[in-house]
């Protein structure tokens, strides 16, 4: 998937990223954007004490996807099947890719591996991850 074709028409999905670049650098450890893109493309969403990842996996069977979590890294692994297994075909367009993929996504904080929820609908994967209870920021009372 080429990003250029999806960035046309004045739409800039990375605009928010650029605006947030300074805090993002803190969260993601100075990782340049070019190295961060791959398949699948991911978006990150922040909740109160949770983070959600959405990824575009069109044509991927949910049974062919493997998710794993360790500390603050989520790994998405799987394979994409080609549009046809027939070899005796004449190709007019061949823009889709297929084969094995693996993507490791750095999360803004450590997550509880026991409380991960994943949904897969219409080629879009959504993974909800929670910050462990022990890691949650605690409100500190100020004595008068």
């Amino acid at each position, binding site marked *: *998937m080429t*990003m250029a*074709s*999806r*960035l*046309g*028409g004045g*739409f800039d*999905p*990375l605009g*928010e*990223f650029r605006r*947030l670049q300074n805090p*993002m650098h803190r*969260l*993601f450890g100075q990782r340049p954007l070019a190295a*961060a*893109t791959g398949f699948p*493309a*991911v*978006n*990150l*969403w*922040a*909740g*109160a004490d949770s983070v*959600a990842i*959405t990824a*575009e*996996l*069109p*044509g*991927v*069977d*949910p049974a062919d996807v493997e998710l794993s979590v360790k500390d603050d890294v989520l790994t998405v692994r799987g394979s994409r099947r080609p*549009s*046809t297994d*027939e070899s*005796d*075909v*004449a*190709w*007019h*367009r*061949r*823009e*889709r890719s297929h084969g094995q993929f693996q993507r490791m996504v750095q999360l*803004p904080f450590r997550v509880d591996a026991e409380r991960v929820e994943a949904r897969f*609908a*219409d*080629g*879009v994967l959504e993974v909800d991850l929670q910050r462990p209870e022990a890691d949650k920021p605690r409100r500190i009372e100020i004595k008068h």
Partner: protein
Amino acid sequence: MEQNIAQATEQSVAPESHDLEQTRPRPVFRPVADIFETRRGVTLVLEMPGVRAEGVEVTLEKRVLTIRGRSSVARPDSYRRIYAEYGEGDYERSFSLSEDIDAENIEATCKHGVLTLDLPKAQEAKPRQINVRAA
């Protein structure tokens, strides 16, 4: 000229060529596609993540096949996007077909955000014998 079937001359989908104005304030993407031809016909495979079968609209007018997909992705308000590698929106792409497609028997299936269109070749496209009479 069998090879030219749906050689898929792509329509330039210029914004001004649209008769209908879009009412949803969201971007429209050109879906990635595979097109291949077999003896039976031509198959188009388009990637439209976030689109379910009800959101797909396929029209064939004057041999121009137009595919539109409306994304049904919804995000709860409590979530704030902090990082983005892809944009969410709708999809649209058009192709010109050659005449020898059986427009009545186009079949469409949508699964895991991928639309597959099977366009069978028309019977008339098969070679015909023409008898030449002696004058």
